[in-house]
């Protein structure tokens, strides 16, 4: 049975931030070694103080439930100014109602419980992100460092 989980996180949105952190914290609680490689927009999740500010876009996201039940709003309405904020408030509202932990809490638990948080050096250079912009406990490294971890029989997941 695999003892490691290797996760790649590439999206900096509210909905895309949850799966890597939920799976990472659950896997480490099941005595697995876990590393998450945050690359490109995934770096937004580990910027200091940013995890709870991530947004979700209603554009090209037809799976998103309608804001008013029973009334079908065309997806193109999502491009109007302010609609991303509306969708984000909606999603934060559902998560709170269901008592789902905030992304910042999951991230804190991940770091505390020993999940390796690896920030992609190349993405940081491309996007002008400095190590001090990221939360404490981050390792800055390249693809090879992540692959070395993943190559040791890890379950590998991409988000």
């Amino acid at each position: 049975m695999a003892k490691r989980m290797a996760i790649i996180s590439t999206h900096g949105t509210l909905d895309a931030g949850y799966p890597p952190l939920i799976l990472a914290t659950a896997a480490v609680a099941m005595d697995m070694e876990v590393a998450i490689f945050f690359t490109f927009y995934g770096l937004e999740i580990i910027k200091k103080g940013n995890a709870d500010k991530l947004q979700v876009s209603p554009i090209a996201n037809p799976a998103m439930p309608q804001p008013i039940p029973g009334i079908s709003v065309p997806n193109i309405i999502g491009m109007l100014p302010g609609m991303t904020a509306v969708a984000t408030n909606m999603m934060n509202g559902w998560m709170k109602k269901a008592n789902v932990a905030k992304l910042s809490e999951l991230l804190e638990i991940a770091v505390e419980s020993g999940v390796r948080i690896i920030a992609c050096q190349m993405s940081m250079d491309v996007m002008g992100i400095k190590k001090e912009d990221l939360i404490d406990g981050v390792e800055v490294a390249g693809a090879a460092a992540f692959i070395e971890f993943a190559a040791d029989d890890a379950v590998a997941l991409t988000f």
Partner: protein
Amino acid sequence: MAFNFDQELDCSGLACPMPILKTKKAVDGMQLGQVLKMIATDPGSLPDIQAWTSKTGHELVGHEEDAGKFTFYIKRTK
């Protein structure tokens, strides 16, 4: 059916993955052979706790369900 336990943890209202994370923390802080009573309302908590005990090797001594409230008795075995 009632079981003896040494410590209690209430995860009522918490959603996945928090009951698992809190259970792990609680069990890690207990002595070998001690039993944790954990209460959860997350509908997925039964398969999750079964999977967690199976993977970690701790023992699910017993569980009960009553009107959406799950009670687990977990023994630290290692």
